[in-house]
């Protein structure tokens, strides 16, 4: 082996430096100077938003409006938004794992709770306006034109041979809303053939439905996209996703069952990262903006969401939003904590047992 200068070791160091350099490059744009507790103001502050999968349209619009307004009222300061859209639970897990989101817009409160439990959210976000909820929708059935399989209510989903699309509850918040809607409708006695207040009946309903589930995508958006690609007979999804599809000219049809859950989607500032990136005030301003009338109108017109007010959501209105016979919230079922850890998703929960039976 010929003698070789120690330049070889230098090469290794250069390589390591390259990797660290990319680390510094990405950090400098984030406004940190490396040590917690201090932060440097940026000329063009960057806000990182982690949102759930299918609200890219409305947040796209909300963000651009906010950016314009901020520019006008803050001496031309340009706020940059970097967005990420994925299954709600996936996003929450990522934030807990270090994803530096300044704001999270998730599809259900437990996912925000997860981030709070990890110590990243230090304020009580549920005390904000409307309990931190931005907008609501309802769980509906997305069916083929003319509803050839005659799906009107939850029990119709159990008909043999039907192919149902619903996302994976471990990754998607929408998936859990779907399950809670079925559970709640059964428990409240609005599903023919399933007794009210009977957990066993609810379990049986979930079993019947999940026997027919053919695709469990990783996000609500993936699920409806698959349905639109021609797979399955029905997709259980958010009402707004179906309305957005109709707006885009697709032939999706929404069927609202007699009883369904009001999907309440929360937004919260992630204190730890917002402080670290020196964007806490802008982040709070954005969240506040989401509660303004202008934002509300955008949620309705672009996002096809219903009002945060339950009575108004139930009544619907404006021709686009049919009234819902029985619209309930998770509070009516004992709250998310109970649903998560006990009655539906707990070890003896209706869904857990139903899934065990179906997968054998």
């Amino acid at each position: 082996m010929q003698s070789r200068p120690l330049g070889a070791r230098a090469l290794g160091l250069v390589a390591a430096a390259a990797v660290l350099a990319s680390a510094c490059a990405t950090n400098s744009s984030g406004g940190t100077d490396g040590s917690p507790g201090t932060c440097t103001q940026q000329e063009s502050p960057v806000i990182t938003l982690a949102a759930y999968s299918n609200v890219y349209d409305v947040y796209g619009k909300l963000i651009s409006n906010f950016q314009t307004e901020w520019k006008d009222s803050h001496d031309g300061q340009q706020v940059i938004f970097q967005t990420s859209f994925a299954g709600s639970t996936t996003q929450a897990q990522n934030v807990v794992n270090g994803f530096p989101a300044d704001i999270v817009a998730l599809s259900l409160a437990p996912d925000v709770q997860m981030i709070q439990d990890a110590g990243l959210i230090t304020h009580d976000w549920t005390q904000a306006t409307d309990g931190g909820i931005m907008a609501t929708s309802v769980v509906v059935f997305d069916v083929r034109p003319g509803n050839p399989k005659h799906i009107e209510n939850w029990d119709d989903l159990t008909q043999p041979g039907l192919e149902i699309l619903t996302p994976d509850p471990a990754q998607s918040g929408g998936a859990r809303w779907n399950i809670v809607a079925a559970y709640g409708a059964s428990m409240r006695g609005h599903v023919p053939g399933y007794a009210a207040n009977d957990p066993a009946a609810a379990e049986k309903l979930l079993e019947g439905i999940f026997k027919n589930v053919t695709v469990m995508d990783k996000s609500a958006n993936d699920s409806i996209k698959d349905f639109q690609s021609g797979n399955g007979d029905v997709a259980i999804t958010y009402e707004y996703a179906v309305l957005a599809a109709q707006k885009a000219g697709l032939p999706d049809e929404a069927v609202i069952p007699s009883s369904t859950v009001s999907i309440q989607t929360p937004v919260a500032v992630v204190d730890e990262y917002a402080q670290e990136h020196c964007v806490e005030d802008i982040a709070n301003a954005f969240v506040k903006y989401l509660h303004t009338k202008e934002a509300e109108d955008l949620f309705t017109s672009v996002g096809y969401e219903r009002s945060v007010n339950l009575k108004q959501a139930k009544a619907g209105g404006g021709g686009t939003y049919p009234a819902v016979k029985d619209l309930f919230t998770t509070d009516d079922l004992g709250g998310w904590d109970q649903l998560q850890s006990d009655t539906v998703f707990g070890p003896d929960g209706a869904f857990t047992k139903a899934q065990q039976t179906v997968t054998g």
Partner: protein
Amino acid sequence: MSAEVRTPRLSGSTRRLLVHGGFTAIAILYVGVLVVAPLIGIAWAALRGGLSTWTSTLAQPDVVHAYLITGIITAITFFVTTVLGVVVALVITRDRFPGRSLLSAFVDLPLAVSPVIVGVMAVLLFGRGGWFEPWFSARGIQILFALPSMVLVTIFICIPFVIREVVPVLQELGVSEEEAASTLGASSWQTFFRVTLKNIRWGLLYGIALTTARAIGEIGAILIVSGSITGKTETATLYILRAFDQNQDPSGYVVALTLALVSIVLLVGIEAFKRREERELRT
């Protein structure tokens, strides 16, 4: 032992032609249905939208960013795996120490690992509760959901390519030329650049082309570690996923086709390098 002499029904050469033709046809048909048809499919899907789809897609800042991020990751990966790959190849073929064959086995390990598992490795090291997480987060350095983790996983996956191409060449060539050079008074650096590097160049280029193609196309590990932050950690492959997610299928097909074309160009380069390498080894 007497073997039966068969009297063929057709003349021997005709029969052989038919058999050859048949086998060739099967081969062509299989490759046609399995490989060529999908290529045609994506070309059709991407070109359906016409020129306007192409221009509007490639002009989007998100798309430009995505290509840029893919480019940065590929460039760093290519640099690290090439330089250090040559070092490892030299050590494997020229150095003698206990455990050398173990080292060689480890080089092959990334080939057996699903890219998803590489993503899991990164999360287990740098995510919350990870072995290195406290050290990095105390210093405010972002590894996961930022470029560093994306670079690291891509490097892991690409490590074997350069090494596996250079090692056989080094083994075939032996040390005689280098020894001659140093006997003639050349310094180590001179020997390396003028002799060694020149000898391994086609194998090296082959390995580099493979590395580049693989780095451009990485999705499994990147999906787990990047967070898909548009404009920051979204690679070209991640953009394609998002385009299909967000009802922008035509754009997705366009970017997918560009990646396919780049890969095919690299492939043609790979084939050319491979032929040159074989030719040189034979002489």
